[in-house]
């Protein structure tokens, strides 16, 4: 697979592009605009860009005040900081009044590498899903990030988008559909379904190829929207393939695995396995070393798939 830009870079480019045709868009930064790439917007539209300093609580509530005054507010910070430092503000200033604030958390997951656990958002998706009125999206690559940002811009309700630090392989080439709340099938298969989002899509596709060598055909779903979940795609996966693996660069508690499991149990129970971060913080290291050490590689996904009971 060809390597594309990091999803944070794609977000920054897409937002700067939206600024041209959307004069009501304003962007609030907590002094990480060169990391989150909102500086691309800020350089083009300095009067609509507000760096409020290292103050995440204020960052979120200022965006809310702009939104309740008719602006279309976007804000970005590291996933760990905006979600964990400013959760009460996301809850009370944004989610409860259901304002048009788009929250972007970059540097998510352990794939940020050397900076270590204090900087790694590994609970952000679960926290975002616990905010009523929020839509939660994690795009897998550069092209789908562009489409996700465009789609979010059409909504007037709050949303969280998770973006990553490293460059990631291009999953979507040429024309493709991206609809919020609708999973994309990336590979056909009837022996099991592997559901994932974000950075894990690459290893999942590799794992599917590996499994195919032994005659196991895996369906692969890019569940880019965690909330609202595509329950129809989950039901079809359970019914048609009988077994499900969920893989995510996130704590197992409260992530996509939890959401899919709830959907499966309610609609059509089948055996499931989960690949994710198992109730631990990670550490500093190279991204690939960390993904291997904490069990987020193609081999881990293959192992989880082989651990499933055989189809009845």
């Amino acid at each position, binding site marked *: 697979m060809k390597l594309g830009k990091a999803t944070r870079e794609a977000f920054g480019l897409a937002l700067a592009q939206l600024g041209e045709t959307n004069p009501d868009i*304003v962007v609030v930064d907590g002094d990480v605009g060169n990391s989150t790439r909102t500086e691309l917007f800020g350089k083009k539209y300095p009067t609509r860009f507000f760096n*409020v300093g290292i103050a995440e609580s204020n960052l979120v509530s*200022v965006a809310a*005040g702009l939104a*309740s005054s*008719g602006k279309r507010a976007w804000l970005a910070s590291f996933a760990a900081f905006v979600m964990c430092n400013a959760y009460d503000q996301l809850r009370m*200033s944004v989610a*409860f*009044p259901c304002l048009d604030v788009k929250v972007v958390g970059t540097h998510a997951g352990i794939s940020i590498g050397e900076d270590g656990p204090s900087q790694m958002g590994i609970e952000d998706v679960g926290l975002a899903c616990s905010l009523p009125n929020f839509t939660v999206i994690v795009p897998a690559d550069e092209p789908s990030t562009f489409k996700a940002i465009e789609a979010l811009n059409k909504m007037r309700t709050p949303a969280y988008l998770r973006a990553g630090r490293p460059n990631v392989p291009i999953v979507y080439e040429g024309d493709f559909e991206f609809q919020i709340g609708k999973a994309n099938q990336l590979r056909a298969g009837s022996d099991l379904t592997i559901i994932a989002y974000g950075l894990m899509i690459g290893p999942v596709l590799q794992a599917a190829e590996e499994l195919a060598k032994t005659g196991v055909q895996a369906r692969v779903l890019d569940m880019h929207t965690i909330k609202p979940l595509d329950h129809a795609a989950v039901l079809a996966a359970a019914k048609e393939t009988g077994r499900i693996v969920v893989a995510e660069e996130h704590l197992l508690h409260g992530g996509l695995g939890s959401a899919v499991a709830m959907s499966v149990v309610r609609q059509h129970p089948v055996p499931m396995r989960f690949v994710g971060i198992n109730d631990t913080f990670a550490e500093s290291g190279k991204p690939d070393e960390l993904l291997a050490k904490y069990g987020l590689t193609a081999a881990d996904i293959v192992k989880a798939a082989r651990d499933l009971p055989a189809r009845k």
Partner: protein
Amino acid sequence: MTVRLSLPDLLAKAKVIRRHIVMSTTAAASGHPTSSMSATDIVTALYFGGVMRYDAKNPTAPGRDKFILSKGHAAPLLYAILAEAGYFSTDLLPTLRKIGSPLEGHPNYRRLPGVEASTGSLGQGLSIGVGAALAAKLDNFDARTYVLTGDGEVAEGQIWEAVMSAAKYRLDNLVCIIDQNGYQQTGATSDVLDLRPLVPKFEAFGWFAQEINGHDVNEILIAFDKAKHIKGKPSAIVCRTVKGYPIHQMLASDPNHHGKPLTKDEAEQAYAIIG
């Protein structure tokens, strides 16, 4: 549009507001009447003393002045003010805190016209006000935002994050009013976390700050007028108030009386004192 009552009418309006506060919280058998009454003269002056421009019939009109109740537990005051200003009927006031009523325990932006922010988790209103003031500047509206906080509330770190950013953006269309009634949930603010004097703290962050008697309507109006004429910096008005004013002597055995409604008998006494 503005509503500018004469001084005697303004004082009479404040009495009506206080009676609404007592009536609604006693009917609800819960709520924060004393936290509402300390700020009554300030907010009455804002809405009925010719300070704020608003149109109750068009509550989301672009370019309106905004009032944000950051100390959301004083919701009974906000509801009484909005009802008297014509945003909704005063008949709604006795439904305070009852299921189905939009007059929730703390203000809900989505359920009631005239409520500019959902508050109740202390410390967020001033930041929301910063956002509103920035938006007004971007749109070239001559619109002002007034935020009311408690004196216990300013212990929240976010207040000072907002203070710093308001100074950076020279938000002379933003006013932070501190209802310094001297009490918070568990006791006197001087015992819990004494941040007085507040004026030099705001000044140190680049604000224009005044300290006034928050029950003297003339002083309040003069302070708001001064704030309007300050250019290039935001304004703070520290209002010395008395929790429960003017029924504080009736509650002398419990001067804080935080989050407690009056009994029906106490309410009757209170109406007599308010006049």
